[in-house]
């Protein structure tokens, strides 16, 4: 398909994809390949990076291996990013689809509902949700999903609003196809491009959100995450700036790679930039 072709020709997007792929590999296999628990206290605390060949990135406040933390952190960052985005899509797509497809009072009700979630400052809501349901990987993922679905719903609604009057949709209606069929098979596949682009950016912002929550001490205490590493190191930033610096860079690079990929996808999928409507 020419989407993939135009994506592979986009150098920037490929750099993003490459970095992301690397992080995915690290997240999937790193824990098996790199021997070391992120929690075990292995060396003296505050060992700076590149001083001990066994612990290249040094140790943290309790003498735990920073590299191990990074590897395990990749896992949780990507997991939370992906799962929360999936949940947000599962909420946002049907909602937006119904609102956009049926219009009228269905639209009104669903959009008012969406508006409620858009009006409450999202980060604040996420903080409250996690605090209330107590920090765990489930509550964090859920909270991120809950605050990030409204843009999906709005986007999907917009797509459906414009696509529902497209002639091939009308033709499907004339064919006597059911609404469900029209939504699922006619409109949805054609509104996927912007959803995919949005989703890639949502994974990025979910990773940022997760790290922000962990930074505030609202992370899952059982799981080593980048945000946790920064949060745990913030009090010692003066003695050991690298403890907050390294995971921060990891987050930035991951998010950056996702953004680059998202941009590339956007260019490959967005009809405005690549000429004709995607065909």
């Amino acid at each position, binding site marked *: 398909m020419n989407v993939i072709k135009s994506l592979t020709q986009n150098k920037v997007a490929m750099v993003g994809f490459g970095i992301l792929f690397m992080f995915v590999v690290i997240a999937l296999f790193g824990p098996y390949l790199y021997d070391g628990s992120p929690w075990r206290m292995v060396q003296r605390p505050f060992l700076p990076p590149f001083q001990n060949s066994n612990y290249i990135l040094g140790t943290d406040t309790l003498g735990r291996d920073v590299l191990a933390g990074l590897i395990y952190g990749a896992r949780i960052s990507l997991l939370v990013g992906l799962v929360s985005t999936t949940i947000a899509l599962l909420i946002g797509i049907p909602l937006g689809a119904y609102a956009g497809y049926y219009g009228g009072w269905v639209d009104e009700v669903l959009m008012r509902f969406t508006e409620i979630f858009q009006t409450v400052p999202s980060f604040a809501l996420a903080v409250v949700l996690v605090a209330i349901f107590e920090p765990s990987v489930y509550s964090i993922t859920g909270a991120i999903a809950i605050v990030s679905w409204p843009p999906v719903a709005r986007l999907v609604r917009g797509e459906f609003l414009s696509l529902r009057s*497209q*002639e091939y949709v009308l033709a499907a209606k*004339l064919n006597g*196809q059911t609404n469900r069929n029209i939504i699922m098979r006619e409109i949805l596949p*054609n509104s996927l491009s912007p959803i995919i682009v949005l989703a890639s950016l949502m994974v990025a912002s979910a990773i940022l959100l997760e790290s922000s929550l962990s930074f505030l001490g609202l992370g899952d205490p059982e799981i080593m995450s980048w945000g946790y590493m920064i949060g745990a190191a913030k009090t010692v930033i003066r003695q050991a700036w690298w403890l907050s610096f390294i995971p921060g860079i990891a987050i930035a690079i991951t998010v950056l790679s996702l953004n680059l990929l998202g941009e590339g996808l956007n260019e490959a999928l967005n009809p405005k930039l690549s000429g004709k*409507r*995607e065909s």
Partner: protein
Amino acid sequence: MKPLLHVENLSIRLPKGADREFAIRNVNYELMPGELLCVVGESGSGKSMTANAVMGLLPKVIEVDSGAVTFDGFDLTSLEERRARALRGNRISMIFQEPMTALNPLMRVEDQISEVFLIHTAMSATERHDRTLALLEDVGLPDPKKMLRAYPHQLSGGQRQRVMIAMALALEPAVLIADEPTTALDVTTQAQILKLIKELQHKHNTAVMFITHDFGVVAEIADRVVVMEKGEMVELGKRDEVLNHPQHPYTKKLIAAVPPLVSPQREVSVHQEAPILQVKNLCKTYTTGGSWFTKARIVKAADDVNFELHRGETLGLVGESGSGKSTVSRCVVRLLEADSGQILLAGNEIQSLNSKQLMPFRKRIQMVFQDPYASLNPRKTIGQIIADGPIAQGMPATDALAKAAELLELVELPKTALDRYPHEFSGGQRQRIGIARALAHDPEVLVADEAISALDVSVQAQILELIDVLKKRLNLAVLFVVHDLRVAAQVCDRVIVMEKGKIVEMGETSQVFEAPIHEYTKSLIASIPGAHWRSGVEDNQSIEIMEAQV
């Protein structure tokens, strides 16, 4: 007489990866003072390229390869940018196709026009104001004082184009370039704008380069004609020479495809059986802009519409945009819910049926849509697109696919198309697929909603022919919604003329075209550009056309 604008051996190169090397190649023509030169061609012929080169509007990636455009002794393609700017909008000016988008939506009319004075003259603010006002009067805009303060969105399409013309003629340029200025307009508005351009041209003795795809327009206004094909200039000559005695095969082919404005003699069929479709007292109003505190605007899109349609008959539904013709057609197929009235399909009232009850009737009345690009789901194969309908109606998938294959044959497409996707086909082919899809249900009524208006002239003719053949073979009743009166005259047995939701005239095609009764119909027909041309079948002409078709 010295030419004003001299295009000499002009070649413009396209960027790498385009479908051809040159946008235009070795183009030569002259624009004489006071003349109106039409540059004609289909989409992709490169007809606007020269104009864009003159105005410095070529995209950065496209550059002039060789040749020159001389104006006042200067080669415009190599002129220093600062001096070229001094000419633009001043000595040479331009108007564009889409009056909707060609004006800055955020600026008042006055500001946009007087900007020209601001750039090129040292007029005072009051002078600018007065001149602008005078210009608006000149182009025949109603209530010019109010117009000054208006924003583009508050104007109609024709008014916007008048504003554009006022802007272009503000400094009485020597050359006016008009790039398809009437294509986006309704036929009556088009006639007015053409008239205005012609008048102003005479008044100021302006030379006009008029770019168009429509031979009717050419016939209406041109002094001389340039015909372009794929970047090459294939013919140049006086209007009547070119129109009536085309030399180049391409020109011949194009002209042949223009439907003559005369309806062929048809047998006046007397329908024995009951009409397949009856529409009674159909009403549909739209309300827009209503909110809690503001009054809604109410538009009557269908106002007490009545008509009948028989099998084997083509009924034309004619009107300008906003006449309600599309609304009626969509109400008939139940894509829109009418407010009141009855729709009887073979005697069965279908207007009041709910979607479940409607199911069995769906397949008996089908539609062909306007936009060949938007009417096929890009994510489905042609086979799926055609077979989906029968499957939804309960046909087993294998049977439906077999039927799809048959239908492809019927619309003259290869069977291999089944597994391919819409983007692999041209506009005309897609329209054939759309027809096949509609026919998959073996419908009795086929509604064609502007089914050919998005196609180039030559393709139009083919599709029209296909519909006609199918109609005869399958004994279809066709409701043909169309804005192009030439087309209507060619294909319809009867026509209905609509204005503002109301039917103003209905009758046999030849009767309506030859002896219209209602004022509106008269003005419509009078507005058809080049109405005098190809309005009767002259022998020598038809022979030439026949040759071209062979």
